[in-house]
């Protein structure tokens, strides 16, 4: 049973959905504060290349190498978030263009490719990876065993993260302030909330998560580095935040749905289904367009819309 198509699809759907989930949660934090960051694709590639570089070059025990690698990826994402924050919050630059600039900077013909070549990472096989963990020996349970109890540590951490983000945004005072800043910065300012500080903090933390999401490719999914290896995952994560109506729980469901669709191709191929590989590769992109169209209808928008101030710089009118 555990080798059946459905179980295998769920298993690989969760594995492939995890980077999408982590990146989309990062973007959710940033967008909830009113900052749209279109730089995800570039930030994920930078996280992927930096994480891989550190894990390849660091000595010491595996757990340490992996932790430091993940930390480095988060650090790079944080720095890129800082750049975006400086451009859009302090200099009040257009958020769309700044995000695109981040993607071009980190992108497949930019800095991530540069670092991959300078570090000579292209031909190396990964030395350290996050292996799958058999939790409590339950990994062989029929059906749910491989899906829930035999995944890598990153998957379990992403579940904790989802719950933490949901709790933070909806159940804490700071989360309430965050939502106020994203919905109506003027009112938040009048309440004494430091709008710029909230926006910076969440763009930075969100950036760190996006960087780590990128590293989960090179440290868990495919232990090697190639230019542009995220293949649009950053953009799909951006779309996921919209599908999920800016709610962490829905982000998780959406990410796994996309994970399943992304892994449909090779799961069917090993079972002898002969269709053009390009068709399977195109499915996540097509699905993104279809779902975007569905959620952009007026009803959905009215019911749970985006943060009102998303994409709008806040300028306090001074006397």
């Amino acid at each position, binding site marked *: 049973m555990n080798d059946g198509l459905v179980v295998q699809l769920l298993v690989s759907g969760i594995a492939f959905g995890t980077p999408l989930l982590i990146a989309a949660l990062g973007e959710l934090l940033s967008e909830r504060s009113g900052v749209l960051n*279109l730089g995800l694709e570039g930030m994920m590639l930078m996280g992927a290349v930096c994480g891989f570089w550190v894990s390849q070059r660091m000595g010491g025990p595996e757990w340490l190498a992996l932790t430091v690698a993940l930390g480095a990826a988060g650090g790079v994402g944080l720095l890129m978030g800082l*750049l975006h924050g400086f*451009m859009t919050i302090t*200099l*009040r*630059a*257009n958020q*769309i*263009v*700044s995000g*695109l*600039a*981040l993607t*071009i*900077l980190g*992108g*497949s*013909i*930019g*800095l*991530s*490719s*540069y*670092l*991959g*070549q*300078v570090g000579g990472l292209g031909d190396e096989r990964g030395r350290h990876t996050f292996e799958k963990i058999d939790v409590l020996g339950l990994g062989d349970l029929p059906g749910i065993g491989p899906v829930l109890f035999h995944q890598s540590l990153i998957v379990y951490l992403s579940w904790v993260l989802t719950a933490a983000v949901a709790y933070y945004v909806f159940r804490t005072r700071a989360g309430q302030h965050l939502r106020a800043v994203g919905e109506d910065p003027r009112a938040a300012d009048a309440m004494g909330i430091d709008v710029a500080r909230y926006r910076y903090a969440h763009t930075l933390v969100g950036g760190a998560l996006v960087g780590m999401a990128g590293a989960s490719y090179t440290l868990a999914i495919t232990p090697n580095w190639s*230019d542009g290896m995220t*293949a*649009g995952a950053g*953009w799909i994560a*951006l*779309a996921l935040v*919209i599908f999920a109506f800016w709610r962490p729980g829905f982000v998780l469901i959406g990410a796994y749905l996309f994970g399943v669709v992304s892994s449909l191709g090779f799961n069917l191929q090993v079972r002898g289904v002969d269709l*053009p*590989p*390009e*068709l399977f*590769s*195109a499915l996540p*992109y*097509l699905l*993104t*367009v279809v779902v*975007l*169209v569905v959620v*952009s*209808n*007026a009803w959905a*928008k009215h019911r749970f819309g985006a943060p009102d101030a998303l994409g709008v710089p806040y300028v306090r009118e*001074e006397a």
Partner: protein
Amino acid sequence: MSTRVRFERRLETPRLLGPILPVVSVAGALVIAAILLLLTGHDPLTTYKRMAEAGFSSTQALSSTVASATPLLLTGLAAALAFRVRVWNIGGEGQLYMGAVCAAGMGIAVGGSGLAVALPAMIVAGILGGAAWAAIPGVLRAYLNTNEILTTLMFNYIGGLLMYYLIFDSHSFWRDVSSPEAKLFPQGKVIDASAFWPGFTGSELVVPLGFVVGVVVAALLFVLMRHTRLGFDLRVVADSPEVGRYAGMRTRRLVLIVMLISGGVAGLAGASQVGDFSHVLEPVGLQPAAYGYTGIVVAALARFNPLGVVVSALFLGGMTNAGFALQGADFPQGLVGTLQAIILFCVLASELFSRYRIVLRTGGGAPVAAGRAA
């Protein structure tokens, strides 16, 4: 006595800033990139000198630069038009692919009937291919309010895969299956030599037809934006959709028109890639070049002015060309893309000076204007 930096909104942007800001931005970007080069063990001055030589020093280098600038000019114009009116068409990349697919298909079909037929047919096919690929996100945006940034991007990936499918995984009209080695190593059908686009040669400088077409398109777009009713409507709707609607402008239709023109111009870039250069549909060459994305940098550096795009395309084309020429161990790949992104950030940061004056307010005293923005 404390000093505070304040931004004061300008009522009017000084004319001189138009050309000055991009130059200052490029200079700033070169300084920042120099730090990166130093950190990774390269000598920035030598690297820049070699890039300048490879891009601009001889007639031959200039010819290559104009060739590299050709696709950037067209994708830059596509982005400049759309971004100027706040329609975020990031799909120049995919629209270029589809322009190349359609122009190559047309070239294979009618290439034998001579340049007088093939050239206009390929140009029209390229424009239609790009416009059609932009039409889908355009309609979705205009009538269903679907975010065009994400849909145009998804269509870039889908277009790229479609192109690969036509050459690598099908027996399509575009694929050459005539010889045994072409079956082993998939490749496209080469269009008839009589349908290769002619270049303009003067004292060793070769200018591809696509570049000349691009300059004409730049002039047309400039006139469109400045001197026509459509351009006026577009500018009004871009600055305030409410005002446009109140004045009875059909905003949805305007958005769609912009997408169609922008996609058509990007498609033209694809047609020129086939007609001027590769003479065959070549996914492996088109996709990593990322002309569509670089077009965004070209457009931003020109501050979305179509005539400025001609200049910035030549400049960034020179950089791209230098990147190709110098590729090797001591010239890391990705450097040119990184440099272009840093330029984009600097341009974006410099926009602050066109919208605001920087004022240093010293405690209690009168405000003192400072900096180059004064």
